[in-house]
């Protein structure tokens, strides 16, 4: 394995860059120095990292939608429409671009033009190219992030960062395992080292770009320790390439205690592992994703899922929250539905912002549990990598030590099976080959047994299926009827 978590040399980077920029015509005009100048000229108000730093200082939770459509003018209109209702803006990239199928994206753009409405599920930034992307940034007053799901996001990164986007979501694991089928993990991690190095180069030139590993993974009953491990690994990989502004993410599970403990432990573990690896000079923030699994179709019910996620985001002390919409179960939201999600979120954030979730031993216990789980798995990751986190990550996935439930990637074991306990916390029903301490595992089993007893049925796969449907059917726990 040639992989290693080590800062890319300038030569290696330059050589790779030339290749990357040739993969689609819009790569040609993109000049790094020009990008730096453009970024440096942006006002502070458009800088993502500044907004996050301010929020951290004030203990405020910022809100951010997802949004992206096929055509530039429509995309601008959409973001301008949402801008007054949120703190941070996105440009969500379409699924063809995510898989580097730029010809397909071109077809989508053409068909969208013909149909007079977007037929793509996002904004094809690569196809539109540098100048058009700058039009987006220039049309807005607030910071804009690239949000996607791209295993090879090198060209996308070159274009959008040069275009003035000030935050870049993703990572070599979190944008492979849930988003791809056959991309080798080693490859996606390498490609993301390139992206991280690119961000590092901007940083070295005085341009801070925020980097956010994608927290929720498959969005479906992911136990906190699983996503925390991935977040920490991607954080370490990014820091190594010179990134300095990291936002670690988590997708709401639905149980109060677990969600509050998750954000608290994520922040603390982040610092713990980053400092242990020798990094001191970085800014850390957190992002809470409103429920990422299946939503109820009924819009009033969807509003409650959104509101509950907002409450937990603020109470857990997350730096920002990613917002869903009442159209979630049906399709890409209209701009009005998107704004409704933001308005609902703002109302709840504002109503709990000043409140302190009461200190409780039950929450402390859950924080400790998550920490022990993460430390156990991370220890094995480092062991497998002989101290190298990149190598360790690849081998850990091979070995099933890292295992994301319901993920499509073939490099993911898919042996770990989560299920909710009797209070709705996500617990481990089948651990596969994930090295959790015995007493921790026994605790999970005990919690699940409690539920099994209450439901008078064995914890089999049907219970998991019921849990997957539960929130869309207006429950947290998938009880039998």
């Amino acid at each position, binding site marked *: 394995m040639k992989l290693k978590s080590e800062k890319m040399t300038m030569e290696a980077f330059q050589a790779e860059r030339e290749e990357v920029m040739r993969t689609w015509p819009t790569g040609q005009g993109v000049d790094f120095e020009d990008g730096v100048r453009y970024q440096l000229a942006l006002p502070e108000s458009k800088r993502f990292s500044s907004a996050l730093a301010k929020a951290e200082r004030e203990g405020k939770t910022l809100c951010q939608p997802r949004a992206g459509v096929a055509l530039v003018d429509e995309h601008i209109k959409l973001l301008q429409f949402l801008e007054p209702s949120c703190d941070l803006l996105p440009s969500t990239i379409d*699924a063809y671009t995510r898989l580097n199928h730029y010809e397909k994206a071109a077809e989508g753009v053409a068909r969208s033009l013909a149909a007079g409405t977007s037929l*793509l*599920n996002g904004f094809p930034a690569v196809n539109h190219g540098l100048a058009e992307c700058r039009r987006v940034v220039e049309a807005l007053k607030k910071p804009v992030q690239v949000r996607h799901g791209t295993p090879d996001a090198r060209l996308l990164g070159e274009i959008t960062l040069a275009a003035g986007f000030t935050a870049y979501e993703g990572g070599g694991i979190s944008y492979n395992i849930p988003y791809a*089928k056959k991309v080798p993990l080693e490859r996606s991690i390498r490609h993301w080292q390139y992206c991280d190095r690119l961000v590092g180069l901007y940083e070295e030139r005085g341009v801070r770009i925020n980097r956010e590993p994608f927290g929720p993974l498959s969005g479906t009953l992911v136990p906190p320790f699983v996503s925390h491990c991935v977040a920490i690994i991607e954080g370490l990989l990014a820091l190594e390439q010179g990134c300095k502004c990291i936002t670690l993410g988590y997708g709401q599970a639905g149980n109060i205690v677990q969600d509050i403990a998750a954000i608290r432990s994520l922040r603390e573990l982040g610092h713990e592992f980053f400092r242990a690896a020798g990094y001191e000079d970085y800014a850390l923030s957190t992002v809470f994703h409103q429920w990422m699994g299946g939503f109820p179709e009924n819009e009033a019910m969807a509003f409650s899922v959104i509101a509950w996620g907002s409450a937990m985001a603020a109470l857990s002390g997350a730096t920002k929250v990613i917002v869903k919409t009442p159209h979630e179960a049906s*399709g*890409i939201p209209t701009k009005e539905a998107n704004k409704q999600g933001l308005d609902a979120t703002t109302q709840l954030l504002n109503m709990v912002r000043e409140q302190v979730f009461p200190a409780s031993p039950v929450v402390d216990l859950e924080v400790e549990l998550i920490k022990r789980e993460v430390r156990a798995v991370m220890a094995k990751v480092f062991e497998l990598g002989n101290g190298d986190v990149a190598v360790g990550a690849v081998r850990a996935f091979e070995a099933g030590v890292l295992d994301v439930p319901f993920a499509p990637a073939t490099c993911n074991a898919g042996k770990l099976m989560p299920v909710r306990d009797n209070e709705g916390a996500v617990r481990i029903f089948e651990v596969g080959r994930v090295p959790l301490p015995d007493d921790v595992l026994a605790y999970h089993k005990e919690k699940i047994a409690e539920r099994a007893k209450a439901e008078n049925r064995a914890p089999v796969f049907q219970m998991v299926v019921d849990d997957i449907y539960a929130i869309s059917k207006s429950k947290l726990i998938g009880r039998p009827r």
Partner: protein
Amino acid sequence: MSDITAVLGVIGSDCHAVGNKILDHALTAEGIKVVNLGVMVSQDEFINAAVETGAQAILVASIYGHGEIDCDGLRGRCLERGLDKVVLYVGGNLVIGKRDFAEVETLFRGMGYDRVFPPTVDLKEMANLLKQDVAARS
């Protein structure tokens, strides 16, 4: 027990894996032999699998919104490859945005799909329809 073999998969560049796993589970429980191609399946992969396994039905899922682009033309290719009796189902979040289902149904029926399903479909009912449709075709 029916003797139906059905090819199952999520078409195009679509990564949504959860529904696929559940469809597999549910159809198998209904006695249908499932050839599950998982996510990100091309039209050719669907057809090759159907030809190889002699499947009577192809169940296409599209969740991510590009269904209108990805699903078009499958019926034609089936005919080209001699699959003239194969039952074609399609389901999921088939188009971009929240659109009236009747409209979506007409659109995909027009593409040659025998039945079109919204995300809220009852999978048991769907399996029964499948058995009827396959019986009627052979």
